[in-house]
């Protein structure tokens, strides 16, 4: 395996990028000009060493976050959020950061391929395309042509439908395992609006969440993280903060961020929602019309809190308190969704919560309709399953899969494998190998999402473009262009004269220009839109909806849970979503922040239940449902109901590349083929499973050395009472610049030593109250700093290479526990343990306060790591490889480290240097905010702040409250392991909790 880039590859990209002209879609198309995010001077798009940014839209999930992809010498190297994009405002989540591994996925298919009797052969593109056209021609009845895709946002969706219509086939089917049709159906029934409303989490003071994982995968996680921090984090100079109560049988990352967790029997949420609505109605009935109120009252009549307590198994007092808190809240918001509520009664629960939001007066306030959120275009699962019925019946002669992977995502009950056998020809346009593509006859691999054109409209006023950010990694075509080429070959009149998808897109954008009221020539508009990543307009909208009282006739029964034993809760995975992210080695290697597990699946099981079953943490367990049986590791987790067992989705891939194959298990294999009756969404919560001890211990790798911090005060908290009582000085008026409280020492402090810390001392603050643990910073660091992936076995030895990690500690026991999380990276100590002990000065203190690591000088004694109290240094135990084509993602500004040297967080020193060159060229100093390390840049909640501690006016100085004058006003600020006298440059701000659990 070669390391780095091969010379030939290098020249290939150099040539492609260097000519400022890039062949966009395959070999035959004319070169096309790319429009960078910010035009460099003189319109030079390519010059060695100068990064060029291109705006596009993230395609890792349907949320449609804006992206700016940085390219160097014609290669994309790093994705960042587009700061102008209203959805994500510059931030990206962990999966968005890992998008570079979608682009450079080693499992990508590199040429057209044909399969005959299990034999794969690489063929020319033209030959593959001819086979595709031939396959279409051979179809006698156009109804036998089916196109199954995973994404259909924006103009792409129109093209697919138009293409199919031109052939006379039925419209496309969009397979998204995390479809949100229940929300849309419920809203249609309740308010007559089949749409996903805009939830204003940031405006709520009381947030009640029925099971949705809104900080992980649900709807628009980046936006929701930001809104959540806005609502739930304390703000300087203000008292109080919003309350977040999580109701559900399982606490994933979203759940552990809650101030309070109400553990309920799985599937009992409907009762509770209606009971809360009932008590809410008693308070607010005057705000409703008399007839409506009485109709509701009679509907809610049987749903008392007592009954809810019985159904949910929760303590009645706690439910009363919940009802009371909800009633007293100034502005409340109730969310519901996610796989933990996706039962066959998912829509009913949505309706129940709609009613609760309605009587609580949230509709039109914290819940707004009319946002036109195109963030879920999925075909209901039931319809997709029906397609496979047709396949079984032999009615499908040509199946085109474009990205969709039904063989992996659909439960065994659908019989996908057998159905595919009965299809005449399967054509896969997927860009990487997956289970379904392995069954295809013709493979015409598509370019990845970052090498092709497209658009998406995630919310009203946001028209986001996708553009190729580099020359294709492999000489392939976008699937849209493959379809258009086929249309041309077939002489489909509907699509005549459309040379390629880019032109098709442009045509549809002329309409957008008209809507936007832009009078400029289209080319100018188009160019500007590409530059900005789209058209973003602030649109005020408020759409009044009325309650449709007929909804009260809906069946509000509890969901059906088949089988016996514990209720199986499949949970959407923060890292892998429903399986898309499993192919990224970064996402496999970055631990799940709550469980700290890497490279695996695990089953969350309540310690009480485990004790009954004689299961201990890490034991192998056998989980069997009527539909399947799996072996996995038991993970003792307080945050799961004693009657439930939770397993994350997204693992257990079998044919999708080295990173994911054979890792963990696919929990869908345990589920029946059951759908939500009303919406057709897949019913994840629909079976009980029996759990038995397997053989011995499972090979479960967790990165946490201990679940408890044992009085070490690594993560510190304060209660809201303490916080509110204290006087909160506005740090904006901080006095003179100063160092930090220092222990008695023989040595002259650095800040009094000439040559140090003038004019810069780089430092960081971490607001633990804002940190949700989403781990986007970790992925960003992997992407920026060429951090190698080492795999499960080496991670088990503690040899993972991540420079930043999310530390996780538990406090309390049983249901009354809390999870504390905070990012930990090199603290760039003033009095660093590592610096003093390195015999060769491979690590030393720079005049700007960085704890520099000189790889070339390092001999690898590892003494620095031993002496680092924070243990943030990572050692290159071996020569690590970057599997082709992942090596193309390597950041040329950062050294790829060789075996035997130590490495660690550098505060992204390469970015500091770039800012310095810019500032030097302008003849001034670096200004606050001009340097943003990768972790800080991507943080959706802005928990991290970076800057110059020597400048008393900088944001980081004000947050850190350093210096004698400010020190005494410190309230939340603390330094981790202060007693070691390391004097770190990173200051943490305490988490403010509403409730401190009792320590055992």
């Amino acid at each position, binding site marked *: 395996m070669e390391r780095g880039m091969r010379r030939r590859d290098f020249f290939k990209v150099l040539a492609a990028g260097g000519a400022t002209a890039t062949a966009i879609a395959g070999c035959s198309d004319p070169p096309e000009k790319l429009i960078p995010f910010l035009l460099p001077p003189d319109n030079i798009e390519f010059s060695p060493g100068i990064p060029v940014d291109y705006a596009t839209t993230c395609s890792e999930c349907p949320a449609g976050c804006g992206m700016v992809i940085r390219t160097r010498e014609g290669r994309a190297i790093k994705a960042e959020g587009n700061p102008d994009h209203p959805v994500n405002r510059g931030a990206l989540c962990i999966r968005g950061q890992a998008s570079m591994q979608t682009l450079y996925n080693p499992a990508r298919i590199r040429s057209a391929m044909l399969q005959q009797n299990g034999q794969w052969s690489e063929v020319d593109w033209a030959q593959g395309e001819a086979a595709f056209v031939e396959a279409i021609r051979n179809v006698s009845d156009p109804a036998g042509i089916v196109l199954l895709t995973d994404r259909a946002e924006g103009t792409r969706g129109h093209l697919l439908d138009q293409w199919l219509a031109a052939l006379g086939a039925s419209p496309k089917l969009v397979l998204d395992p995390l479809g949100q049709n229940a929300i849309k159906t419920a809203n249609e029934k309740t308010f007559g609006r089949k749409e996903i409303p805009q939830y204003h989490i940031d405006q709520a003071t009381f947030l009640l969440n029925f099971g949705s994982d809104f900080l992980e995968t649900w709807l628009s996680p980046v936006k929701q993280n930001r809104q959540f921090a806005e609502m739930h984090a304390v703000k300087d100079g203000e008292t109080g903060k919003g309350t977040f109560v999580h109701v559900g049988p399982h606490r994933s990352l979203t759940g552990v961020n809650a101030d309070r967790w109400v553990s309920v029997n799985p599937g009992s949420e409907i009762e509770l929602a209606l009971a809360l609505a009932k008590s809410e109605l008693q308070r607010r009935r005057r705000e409703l019309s008399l007839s409506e109120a009485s109709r509701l009252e009679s509907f809610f009549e049987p749903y008392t809190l007592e009954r809810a307590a019985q159904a949910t198994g929760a303590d009645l007092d706690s439910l009363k308190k919940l009802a009371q808190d909800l009633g007293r809240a100034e502005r409340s918001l109730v969310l519901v969704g996610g796989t933990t509520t996706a039962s066959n009664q998912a829509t009913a629960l949505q309706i129940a919560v709609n009613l609760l939001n309605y009587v609580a007066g949230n509709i039109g306030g914290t819940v707004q309709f009319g946002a036109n959120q195109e963030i879920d275009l999925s075909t209901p699962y039931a319809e997709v399953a029906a397609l496979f019925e047709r396949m079984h019946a032999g009615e499908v002669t040509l199946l085109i899969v474009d990205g969709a992977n039904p063989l992996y995502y659909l439960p065994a009950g659908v019989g996908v494998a057998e159905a595919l056998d009965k299809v005449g020809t399967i054509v896969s346009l997927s860009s990487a190998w997956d289970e379904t593509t392995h069954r295809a006859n013709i493979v015409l691999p598509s370019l990845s999402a970052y090498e092709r054109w497209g658009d998406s409209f995630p919310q009203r006023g946001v028209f986001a473009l996708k553009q190729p950010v580099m020359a294709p990694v492999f000489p392939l075509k976008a699937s849209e262009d493959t379809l258009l080429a086929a249309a041309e070959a077939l002489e489909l009149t509907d699509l005549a004269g459309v040379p390629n998808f880019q032109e098709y897109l442009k045509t549809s954008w002329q309409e957008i220009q008209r809507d936007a009221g832009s009078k400029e020539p289209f080319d100018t508009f188009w160019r500007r839109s590409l530059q900005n990543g789209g058209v973003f307009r602030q649109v005020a909208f408020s759409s009044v909806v009325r309650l449709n009282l007929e909804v009260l006739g809906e069946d509000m029964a509890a969901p059906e849970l088949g089988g016996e034993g514990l209720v199986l809760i499949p949970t959407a995975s923060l890292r892998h979503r429903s399986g898309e992210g499993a192919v990224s080695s970064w996402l496999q290697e970055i631990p799940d922040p709550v469980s700290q597990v890497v490279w695996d699946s695990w089953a969350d099981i309540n*310690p009480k239940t485990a004790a009954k079953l004689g299961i*201990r*943490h*890490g034991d192998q367990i056998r989980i069997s449902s009527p539909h399947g049986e799996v072996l996995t590791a038991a993970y*003792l*987790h*307080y945050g799961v109901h004693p009657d439930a067992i939770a397993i994350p989705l997204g693992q257990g891939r079998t044919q999708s590349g080295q990173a994911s194959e054979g890792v963990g298990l696919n929990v869908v294999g345990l589920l029946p083929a059951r759908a939500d009756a009303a919406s057709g969404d897949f019913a994840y919560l629909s079976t009980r499973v029996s759990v038995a001890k397997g053989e011995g211990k499972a090979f479960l790798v967790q*990165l*946490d*050395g*201990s*679940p*408890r*911090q*044992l009085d*070490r005060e*690594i993560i510190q908290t304060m209660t809201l009472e303490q916080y509110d009582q204290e006087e909160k000085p506005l740090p904006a008026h901080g006095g003179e610049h100063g160092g930090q409280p220092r222990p008695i020492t023989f040595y002259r402090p650095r800040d009094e030593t000439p040559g140090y810390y003038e004019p810069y001392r780089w430092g960081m603050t971490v607001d633990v109250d804002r940190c949700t643990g989403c781990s986007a910073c970790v992925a960003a660091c992997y992407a920026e700093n060429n951090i190698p992936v080492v795999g499960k076995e*080496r991670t088990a*030895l*503690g*040899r*993972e290479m991540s420079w930043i*990690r999310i530390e996780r*500690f*538990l406090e309390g*026991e049983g249901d009354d526990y809390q999870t504390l999380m905070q990012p*930990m990276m090199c603290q760039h100590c003033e009095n660093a*343990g590592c610096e*003093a*002990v*390195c*015999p*060769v*000065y491979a690590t030393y203190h720079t005049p700007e306060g960085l704890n520099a690591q000189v790889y070339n*000088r*390092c*001999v*690898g*004694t*590892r*003494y620095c*790591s*031993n*002496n680092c*109290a*924070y*243990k943030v*240094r990572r*050692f*290159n*135990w*071996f020569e690590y490889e970057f599997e082709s084509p992942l090596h193309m993602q390597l950041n040329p500004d950062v050294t790829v480290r060789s*075996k*035997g*040297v*130590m490495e660690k967080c550098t505060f992204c020193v390469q970015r500091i240097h770039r800012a310095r060159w810019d500032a030097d060229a302008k003849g001034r100093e670096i200004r606050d905010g001009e340097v943003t390390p990768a972790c800080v840049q991507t943080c959706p909640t802005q928990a991290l702040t970076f800057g110059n501690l020597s400048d008393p006016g900088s944001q980081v100085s004000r947050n850190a409250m350093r210096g004698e004058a400010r020190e005494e006003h410190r309230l939340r600020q603390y330094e981790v*392991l202060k*007693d*070691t006298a390391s004097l770190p440059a990173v200051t943490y701000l305490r988490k403010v909790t509403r409730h401190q659990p009792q320590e*055992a």
Partner: protein
Amino acid sequence: MTEITYSEVTADVLRTLVRPKPAYFLLLLGFVTALGTGVFSLAVQVDVGIGLSGISHPIGWGFYITNFVFWIGIGHAGTLISAIFFITRAPWRTPIYRAAEGMTVFAVMTAGLFPILHMGRPWYGYWLIPYPNSRMLWVNFKSPLLWDVFAVSTYLTISVTFFIVGLIPDLASMRDSTKGPRKLLYTILAVGWTNSYQQWIHYARAYILLAALATPLVFSVHSIVSWDFAMSNVPGWHSTIFAPYFVAGAIFSGLAMVLTITIPMRVIFGLEKYITDHVLQSVARVILFTSIIVGYAYTTEFFMSWYSGIPAERGQFYFRAFGDPALLPFSEGSTLGFPQIAFWIMVFCNIFAPLPLWRYKIRTNLVALFIISILINIGMWFERFNIIVNSLQRDYNPQVWGSYTPTIIETGITLGSFGFFFTLFALFVRSIPALSIAQLKENLDPPRKNPTQQD
């Protein structure tokens, strides 16, 4: 020893050099095999990467540094016997001092390998030496590892010098009693020794001066080695008692190694006349004394960790003895794992195993002495393991606690270090008088021409 004559001494000692028994070759074969295993393991490790060892994050040091400290410690007894006991005129040192001194040289040579081979990039090991270079790079004098470089190289230099100077009269005897190429070698090494009165005057002065020079090294070298740990801030390392604690431990382990070596020597070569019971029981008494110091140090460490009130310190020492507290919901806590077994082996071997030495009968019983000496060697190796590895497993931040499992590679290299040491030692007893002929004779009555002059 008054019954022994000069010629008898020369004959007895030189006999060890000429006619080895087959047992000797069998042993040597074992040692060389062990050495070969180590060399092979090392070659693989250098080629593939230090990751082949079980060292990981956060346990940056494992078997290698344990071995380093262990071997350096072994060396100390040799210098103690040859230098300090020479100056203090302890006559029982004479028959064993040469073997002990050889042991020192070889132990320091063995020890010196480890700081280099444990590096991530051992081929740049010479960067630790301050030498003028075109890159204008210098070493960090603040780093205890650099102090080690000086301490160990100084120690090796002085030990080798002292060893060679002590050999000169014996080399001359060898020169006079051998033929062929060996004679040439001994002639060169004997640097023109003629046994003249003048030479003896200078020689005695030089020897005592060198002894005086070596004396502080007994204390300084291991103190500096201990500062590798004491100067850092790892709970379990950061302790002011480390210097005396390590020195006592070094002498303790070194004297045990002296017994391990000299008892077989006495048996194999039949040297009961010289390595008498009195010699062995004197060594045993010093062992008993240092054992008490070491035991006291263990106790003090525990007391101080409690007294400090620092959770990480308390946690560290609790872990060493009893394992982890309950870490709910993952574990009920309190396990007797490898680290705890290492700890209890250390306590048993270093505090309890030497206790029988209070009895004279045990001190003069060869079998008992040999067994105890082996136990102490094991115990002292585990003491270093306990300090180095156990401390690193549970430091300040529980998030990054880890555990250490040695691999076959580092076990091979450890075995190789024993092979290296014993191979050198076995070759030494075959080529150089393992007992100092000259110094043994010093302790004898001078031969008389006229027996009537006897008092």
